[in-house]
């Protein structure tokens, strides 16, 4: 799981922004933290969220701490699902968490530059958000079996 997390961070700052499938950068780290939180333990998800978030914040030009906060939120949301005892039969819960936080990420980043923007290309921004949502959900469904295989048995029912 540690290797998977490290690879995900490196891919997020190097390969994915260079490739830009559908013109957007999929949020692989968000997907990984959510899946680790749901398939493993909340504490391991929090550790990955903090370490990965700091690296992404160092690479990012947005407000420092944004990525760490977003990924920690994902880890906490996944931990709450465990605590609530929600059955995790398929990727539905993971997809809901990833979808909500993808929208939150976009809104926070765009609001952060709102003071500098003179025109709002709503159509273009909406298109990018939809494309990123689709890619993140595809990654969530595709990576869930892999994350389930590599995470240790979840400590059921509690955070940490």
């Amino acid at each position, binding site marked *: 799981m540690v290797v998977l997390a490290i690879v995900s961070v490196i891919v997020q700052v*190097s390969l994915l922004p260079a490739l830009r499938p559908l*013109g957007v950068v999929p949020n692989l780290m968000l997907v990984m933290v959510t899946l680790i939180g749901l398939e493993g333990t909340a504490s391991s998800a929090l550790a990955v969220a903090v370490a990965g978030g700091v690296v992404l914040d160092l690479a990012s*030009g947005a407000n420092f701490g944004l990525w760490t906060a977003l990924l920690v939120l994902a880890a906490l949301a996944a931990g709450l699902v465990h605590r609530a005892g929600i059955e995790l039969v398929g990727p539905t819960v993971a997809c809901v968490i990833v979808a909500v936080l993808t929208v939150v990420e976009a809104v926070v980043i765009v609001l952060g530059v709102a003071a*500098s923007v003179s025109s709002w290309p709503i159509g273009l921004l909406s298109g990018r958000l939809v494309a*990123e949502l689709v890619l993140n959900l595809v990654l969530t469904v595709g990576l869930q079996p892999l994350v389930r295989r590599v995470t240790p048995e979840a400590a059921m029912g509690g955070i940490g």
Partner: protein
Amino acid sequence: MFLAVAGVLGQLGPLRWAYEHSVVPAGAGLAAVGSTAAEAISNLGKVKDLARDNLKLEQENADLRQRLAADAETRRDNDLLRQQLGLEVAGAPRQVAAEVVAFQPDSYRQFVTINKGSGAGIKAGMAVLSGGELIGTIADTGSMTSRIMLVTDPEFKLTAKDQDTGATGIVRGQLGSGLILDKIGQTDAVKSGDTVTTTGLGGLVPSGLLIGEVQSVNTRANVVFQTAQVATSLQVSQLRFAYVVLGM
């Protein structure tokens, strides 16, 4: 919140050191692979236009050779006059080459990280070129890396001028992509096809650096300023190398 405060206070030195010595070297190769793949995919879609683009480029090349020859003469005359007046002869800008090793990890902001930092003499605010065009300015530096705010970032701003008419304005990145030349006086002439360059006013960016070409002009009678859409050839995903202008 602790991290945000530490970031504002500039106390991220140890974290940055660890990032520069671990993630950056590991990601550099993947960034190169990604850029090459992005370029290859982009080229696949252009195969049928190759013949037409080739002819257009040959004509542009011939035109540019002619202009280069005329500019060389002008430069010689300029240097001679400067010597006669006792002024310093303008030199070519000193540059340091760097490789792009990391990109902005989201779809909305436009930053890249290069593998040269303050150790190579780079400072915040310096201009960065690639392919002969200004692609951004240095946002911040570490000892071994620097982060570049690209011209297409929504917070990018720089004074610029229309090289053909002398009209000045502020070039700004647009959310989504692209550039606009803003705050152009209503009486200033700007037309499609004009070249936009830096003015050198304030900061560390020298004058005369190519930014892009005017695509369209937006003029309305009831506003104080005109705006113009500026086209740049910057393709973030295919960015491999950057050249930081250290000074004249």
